[in-house]
């Protein structure tokens, strides 16, 4: 490898609360949003461009996102279509471990992955939420995600009646 001319130049990003992070071009290109931005500038402009401001991602979340993209920068990213078709039975143990975080961090990660358009990270993090919902009653889901019960007894009864058939085997 040629150390003098790095094939993966450094790129800086700035979180909504003003913290600057350094990562590499290869990593940051996993973000569709940033990829579009860079393509707009043109390849040659990358080394001269300043730090990229990310107004919708705070520093705590950006740190997590960067950890993920740096780990995955050399992997082939599946297309959105491939992700959709995937039954999602196999999860990389590194990812499984990476997603062990409290729910407000996970929430911020999901919205960041959505904003930055990182399909596989979005797929992994939303799947994690789905796995937590699975086989839980509405009350259990509410207490787990700290969601307010905003129904009147009459309203909830009507919804239950409407969907009763869904519970048939």
């Amino acid at each position: 490898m040629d150390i003098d001319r790095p094939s993966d130049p450094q790129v800086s990003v700035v979180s909504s609360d003003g913290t600057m992070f350094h990562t590499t071009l290869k990593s940051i290109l996993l973000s569709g949003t940033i990829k579009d931005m860079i393509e707009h500038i043109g390849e040659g402009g990358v080394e001269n461009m300043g730090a990229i401001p990310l107004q919708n991602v705070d520093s705590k979340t950006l740190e997590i996102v960067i950890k993920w993209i740096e780990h995955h920068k050399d992997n082939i990213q599946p297309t959105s279509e491939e992700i959709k078709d995937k039954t999602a039975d196999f999860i990389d143990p590194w990812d499984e471990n990476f997603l062990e975080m409290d729910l407000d961090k996970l929430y911020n990660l999901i919205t960041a992955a959505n904003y930055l358009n990182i399909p596989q990270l979005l797929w992994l993090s939303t799947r994690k939420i789905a796995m937590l919902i699975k086989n839980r009653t509405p009350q259990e889901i509410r207490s787990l995600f700290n969601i307010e019960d905003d129904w009147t007894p009459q309203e909830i009864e009507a919804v239950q009646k409407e969907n009763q058939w869904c519970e048939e085997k």
Partner: protein
Amino acid sequence: MSLVVREFNKCFSELPDCLLEIIFSYLSLCDIANCARVCKNWNRYLADENNDIWRLQCLRKLSEKALKSDLLLSVPTYKAKLRAFYHAWNPLDSSRHIYIKPNAFTLHRNPVAQSTDGARAKIGFDSGRHVWEIMWEGPLGTVAIVGISTKDAILQCHGYAPLLGWDDQSWGWNLVDNYLLHNGDAGNFPLLTNAPKYQVGEKIKVILDCESHCLAFEKNNEFLGVAFTNLPSKKLYPTITAVYGNTEVSIVYCGYPFDG
């Protein structure tokens, strides 16, 4: 501290639709029904019966061919089509001479001599009001009965018999002679002189009202009147019995009646 909790609170209940869609796409139908009851925002998203979640669930159960067939014209949304599937014939609760075709909505009675054969739908009702369509797509033969039964009514007997309505566990309308049957006999229906007989392919709507315990019929969108009253508070299942070889009968559950 409480401020943090409130902010967090808002987060998951108010996830944007595009993210709810991805999360719900991993879930089973049963989990989705639970999600609809979590909060109003989640329910609002799932109340769109034609969104991608319902399409996905629908495609897991129904073939593209069945989805596009004319049979399901009266249930326009993905959710309604899926609901009709869940309410269709029960292969495990029909005569051994009947098989359910791959579309799940149509039964086929094999050509067996000296046998009367019936089929019940998968889901029975003891509350609410329900409407389903029955279409007889083959010859009626000498006895062709549309109606309801409890799980206690038998679905096969020897000979060509008016089986549905035979005892006090079933209620039927014989399309061949426009006659009602319950406990063996119940009288003419509809109450018109020279009422037209059923023509193959016509659509019959069965209307079950578990609140006022009555059953009514409609043919080609014309209301024919109440056929049975004083129905018991037991689970009542859509049922038919047939005698003709290779005849086919379809069922499409439509949900609640539109009128008041």
